[in-house]
C-alpha cells in the first residue's frame, strides 16, 4: 500500500537538507552526489549537515532500542530550519518518517520533535516528482531497465509509484516488469548476515527475475538492496549490475552525459 497516497505536498522550496545515509556515505557516495546534482539543477540549494551519521535503523531492526534512540536523537537535532529533508533511500526515509515517532512514543517532547521531522522527510523520487515537480528531458540512447523497489521503499514510501512516474518522463527508457516485483531482495540489513542461506536464496531469485526482463541494468532507490544484488551478481561472475536511481536519472538527463 502506498502510504504516501494522501500526503499533502508543499510548494517547491528554495532550500533543502540532504540526509545521505550511512551506506551511501561509505559505499555509494556517487548516488549522494547525483542526488545533489539533481536537486541543484532544479534551483534548490542543498544543505548537508556535516554531523549526520545513520538513521539508526540497523539497531532498531536488531532489537536495540536504547542504541536506536541515541543515534536517532543525534540526527533529529541536525535539521533546525523548516526545510524538507531529502533521503535518497526508501528504507532510511521510512525509518525517519514512520518509525522515529514510534521510537520516541513514550516521551511527549521528543515525540513532538520526531513527528515534526517525520513530516518533512521525503524519499528522493517522491520529492522530485511531487514537490520539485521536475520535468525531465531524456538525452540518452534507448534503454531497457528493470526497477527494484524494496520493501520499505514500496510499503512505507510508495517509491514504486514515484520512481515509475519519473522514469515515464524519459521516452528513451523502457521499464521492464519483473516476476514477483513486490518481493524482498533478501537484504534486510542484519538479516543478510544472520540468515545467509535464506537471504542468498532470495537475492538469487531476485537477480534472476531482474535479468529475465532483458534489461541492461536495474535501478533501485535503496543502496542496501542495490549493493546486495550487485555483489551477488559479482560473485556469480555476472556483469549485469544495478544503479542507484539518482545516478541513472542524472546520467540520462544531463546533456554532458555524466559527472563533472
Amino acid at each position, binding site marked *: 500500500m502506498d502510504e504516501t497516497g494522501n500526503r499533502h505536498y508543499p510548494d517547491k522550496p528554495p532550500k533543502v537538507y540532504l540526509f545521505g545515509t550511512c551506506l551511501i556515505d561509505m559505499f555509494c557516495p556517487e548516488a549522494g552526489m547525483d542526488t545533489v546534482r539533481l536537486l541543484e539543477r532544479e534551483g534548490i540549494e542543498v544543505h548537508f549537515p556535516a554531523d549526520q551519521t545513520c538513521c539508526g535503523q540497523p539497531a532498531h531492526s536488531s*532489537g536495540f532500542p536504547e542504541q536506536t534512540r541515541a543515534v536517532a536523537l543525534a540526527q533529529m537535532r541536525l535539521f533546525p530550519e523548516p526545510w524538507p529533508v531529502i533521503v535518497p533511500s526508501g528504507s532510511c526515509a521510512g525509518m525517519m518518517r514512520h518509525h522515529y515517532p514510534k521510537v520516541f512514543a513514550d516521551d511527549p517532547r521528543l515525540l513532538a520533535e520526531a513527528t515534526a521531522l517525520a513530516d518533512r522527510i521525503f524519499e528522493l523520487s517522491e520529492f522530485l516528482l511531487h514537490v520539485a515537480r521536475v520535468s525531465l528531458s531524456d538525452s540518452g540512447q534507448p534503454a531497457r531497465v528493470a526497477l527494484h523497489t524494496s520493501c520499505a521503499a514500496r510499503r512505507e514510501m510508495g517509491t514504486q509509484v514515484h520512481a515509475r512516474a519519473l522514469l515515464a518522463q524519459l521516452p528513451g527508457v523502457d521499464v521492464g516488469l519483473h516476476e514477483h516485483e513486490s518481493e524482498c531482495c533478501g537484504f534486510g540489513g542484519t538479516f543478510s548476515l544472520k540468515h545467509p542461506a535464506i537471504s542468498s536464496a532470495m537475492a538469487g531469485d531476485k537477480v534472476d527475475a531482474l535479468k529475465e526482463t532483458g534489461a541492461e541494468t536495474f535501478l533501485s532507490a535503496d543502496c542496501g538492496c542495490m549493493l546486495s544484488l550487485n555483489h551477488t551478481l559479482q560473485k556469480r561472475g555476472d556483469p549485469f549490475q544495478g544503479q542507484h536511481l539518482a545516478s541513472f536519472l542524472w546520467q540520462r538527463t544531463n546533456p554532458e552525459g555524466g559527472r563533472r
Partner: protein
Amino acid sequence: MNAQNNSQINAQANTQALRFVPASEFKERAAVAVADAHLRKSFRGAMDFLIAKRAAQFPDPVALESQRGLAEHIRKYSLARLPDLLEQLERNLTANGVQVHWAENPEQANAIIINIARRHSTKLMVKGKSMVSEEIELNHAMADAGMEALESDMGEYIVQLDGEKPSHIIMPAIHKTKLEIARLFAAKVPGAGYTESVDELIGIGRAVLREKFMTAEIGLSGVNFAVAETGTLCLVENEGNGRMCTTVPGVHIAITGIEKVVEKLEHVPPLFALLTRSATGQAITTYLNMISGPRKPGEKDGPREMHLVLVDNGRTQAYSDEQLRSTLQCIRCGACMNHCPVYTRIGGHAYGTTYPGPIGEIISPHMLGLAATHVLPTASSLCGACGEVCPVKIPIPDLLIRLRGEAQHDARPGHAPMLGQGAAKSALVDAIWSGWAALYTRPALYRAFGWLATRFRALTPPMQSGWTVSRTPLKPAKRTLHEQMAARERR
C-alpha cells in the same frame, strides 16, 4: 498400544515430537530446505496461486482498507473486553448445555479431553481441522492413552498418514505433490490401489473417513469464532468433515484458544468475509457451521454431549502487554505465510513450531518461550509483506522487532519478564551495538572512521560473515560522501 495393526497409529508412532525445537536447528533446517529445489519450486507455485486468488478477491484497495480497519477494530474491541467476554461465553454456553473447560497449558488440555474420551470408552476420535489440537499435540496424547485420533480434513489426513506435521495452517499438506500423495495412499491405505487421479485419491480418503465417522465415539473440532452473547461456536470449513465431526458422533469436543471470542453475532460476518478471502481467495466457504449446543429433546440429530476446551498456552502473556496483545487479533487466515518470502523459500516444517511463518514467529515465543524460539523473530527481512496483507492489521514487523529486543535484554522497567526473557543475551553483541552507537553519535569520530575506511579500503576483509556466502565482499568507496560534500563547500 492396543491398535498396532492400524496404519494410522503406526504412522503416528513414527512422528517426531516437534514441540521443542532448539533454536540452533532452525538455521540448519532452513539451509536444507532452501537447497531443496523441488520443495522450493512447489512452495513457490502454491504460494503464487494463493496470492493471486486472494488478490482477485480484493480488486479495490480502498474498500479493502476499510474492511481491514473494521476487522481490526472488532478484534481489538473483543480483546479489550476479553475476560468479561469469556465469562459471558461460558455462561451462555453452559445455559445451552455445553460443558466449558479451561486449560492453562497443553498437558491440562490433553488431560481434559482424554478424561472425557475415557468416560465414553472411546476407541476412535474423528477430528476436524484444529490448529490448537496440533498446538497441544493431542494426537500423541491420545495415542499414548491407547486411543486413536483420526484427522478427517483431507490435508490433515494426508499429513497424519505420513507421520508428519502440517506445513501450513490452512493447507496442511501443501508441501506434498500429487505423486507423493498417490504413493503414500497406495502404501498406507489398506486396500487402496495406485492412482494419480486427484478425484480418485480424494475418493479413497473419503471412503476411509465415511466409515470412521459412523464408528467414532467422539468428534473433535476447532473454533473460528466464539460468540459470547449467544454462546455460539462458528466453524469455517470446505469439506463438510467439520459438520460430520460435530454432528455424527455422540460427543462433540470443541477446542480453541481463549482469544477467539467476539461479543456479538454481528461481529462475525466482517471477520468471516476477510478470513475466507485472505486464506483461500474464496468469497465464502462451502460450510459455516454455527453450533449452539448439543441435541435437544425431540431433535433427531446432533451430539448428545458437547464440550468446549478453552486453551491459554501462553496467550495470557501476550495479552498482558499492550503492544504484544495485537498478536491475539489473529484469525489464522495464513495470508502472512502465503506472502512471506522466507516461508516461501523454506516451507513450514523448517520452523519446527505448530504455527509457521510470520504468525508463528510472533506467537510461538509466548507458547514455547524465547529460550526455544528466539531465532524465529530474526528469520525475517522485515519486508512488511505480512503486515500489509494481514486482514486484522497486526503490525507483525513491529512485533518481530520487539521480540528480538526481549530476547536480548532484561525486561524493561515496569514490564513483567516474558518466558525466556533475555535468552539470547550476548555480551559480545551488546558490546558491538554499544560501540556502534558510540561511533554513530560522535560525528567527528564517525568522519574519522570514514576517512580511515576509505583510505585503507584495500584492507577490507574478504570474508564478511553471512554477507560473503553468496556475495563478493563490500568495499568502501574511494571518498565518503561526507568528504566529497566538504570538498564542494570549500570550493
